[in-house]
């Protein structure tokens, strides 16, 4: 499903974020990418979502070599992913419903389908009563769950999460962990970049540890 082989990423200013990283993830696996700040966790996720391109080595997702991807093909690759951001990155000028509907509008679903799927996704994260609520009126934990609803509404094959519990209380973090587990149980490949040890203990996933851009285990 996902394979990194000898991947090195050097940023234009010379900083080497990843160095000779190789690993393979099967479909339906759950992986935890951990390491201290600046170890290269975020860079690894960016390479996966074709936001950055590797300097050397190859990243293959679903049989596609992302380094050789034409710019026109990038949007279609990204539709295979659900992205959960630490900062949520919700759009504050529209309701919870419209935030979650965005990936479906982008993919060109009909309005009827969008209604059904958005409600199902909101139900899944426990926000069904908040369809018309504006994101600003939601708590931090609710905003994070809304972000998750947006990430899974189009039923992606891979869920990528960057520090999903970074700003949350412990109780909220546990419920978020349970959500990730339930998606993994229905076959979604889940990759979480985090140094939250509680979350790690809760999910007991495969662990990929980075240190100074290199793979430790």
């Amino acid at each position, binding site marked *: 499903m996902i394979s990194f082989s000898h991947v090195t990423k050097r940023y234009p200013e010379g900083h080497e974020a990843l160095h000779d990283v190789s690993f393979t993830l099967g479909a339906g696996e759950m992986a935890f990418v951990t390491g201290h700040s600046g170890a290269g966790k975020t860079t690894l996720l960016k390479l996966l979502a074709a*936001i950055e391109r590797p300097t050397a080595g190859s990243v293959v997702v679903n049989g596609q070599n992302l380094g050789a991807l034409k710019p026109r093909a990038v*949007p279609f690759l*990204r*539709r295979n992913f659900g*992205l959960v951001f630490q900062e949520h990155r919700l759009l504050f*000028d529209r309701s919870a419903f419209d935030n979650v509907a965005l990936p479906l509008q982008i993919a060109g679903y009909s309005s009827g389908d969008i209604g059904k799927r958005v409600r199902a996704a909101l139900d899944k994260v426990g926000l069904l009563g908040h369809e018309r609520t504006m994101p600003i009126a939601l708590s931090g934990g609710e905003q994070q769950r809304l972000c998750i609803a947006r990430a899974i509404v189009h039923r992606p094959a891979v869920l990528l999460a960057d520090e999903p519990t970074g700003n949350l209380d412990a109780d909220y973090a546990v419920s978020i962990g349970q959500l990730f587990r339930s998606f993994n149980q229905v076959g979604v490949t889940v990759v979480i970049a985090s140094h939250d040890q509680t979350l790690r203990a809760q999910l007991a996933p495969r662990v990929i540890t980075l240190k100074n851009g290199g793979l430790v285990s």
Partner: protein
Amino acid sequence: MKTWFTQHGRGLRAAVARFTGAPLGALFNVLVISFALALPLGFYAVLNSLQTFAGHALVDSAPQLRIYMALDADSDDIAQTDQRLGQDDNVSKVLFVSRDQALRELKQSSGLADVIDSLPQNPLPDAFIVSLREPSPAALETLRDGIQTWPHVAHVQVDSAWAQRLDALLRIGRFAVAVLATLFAAVLAAVTFNTIRLQILTQRDEIEVAKLIGATDAFIRRPLLYFGALLGLVSAGIAWLLVSGGVMLFNREFGAWTQLSGSLFRLDYPGPAAIFTLLAVAAALGWGGAWLAATRTIALLEVEYK
């Protein structure tokens, strides 16, 4: 195909929502553009009306040539000239006014009988008044230049010189309208370009998130293009209303006066062809300006992943 309609429907709806969502900002943009469009359209309307007026005037005043013979021309010369005029296909009527007849008429009409009587000899020449079948300015000119070279002809005068001058002025006017229209078309495109660029910058978050979750550039561009086209279309509509209002006011204020003075000069409303061209060109320019802004600015907005 269905998806295509869905996507375009959404693009259009998003554009309309953006338009009605910020009515004040949209209003000012629309005003700027509609004034820019109303100027050339108004000028065009005035010009068109003048042209119609000039056309009528040319027919009504039936332009004629006056041929003045030289003072030493004798009756043979006059007969010869009369014959030559009769041979021209374009000449419909020839009226001969002898110098004695002309002097009599002058005496009667001018009230200068004493002065004229005191003249040692008749200063007036013999003259022909020639009417043409096809009184176009070009035909008049050709004929005048031809007759000018005949023997014993002193001077040929075209009656409708003022109509010709008007025709020349109209030609200058049409050129001015074309220049004006080009300039204001550029204004339209520039205003749309800037509006869309600002819109993209305020929507930066939305565009970045949309790109991250798989939006193509076309998806992001679509509502912006519709917005540009809408801006042009609405502005063109308002420009049309402005010009129609101006024409109505002019005709009400000056229509009576021109009737009193015996002329029937009225402004015409811009015709359907002009209106259609205006709407289509304005929409296309709005679309084009938006396309330029969107393509340039979206490319500059690199996805920043946090």
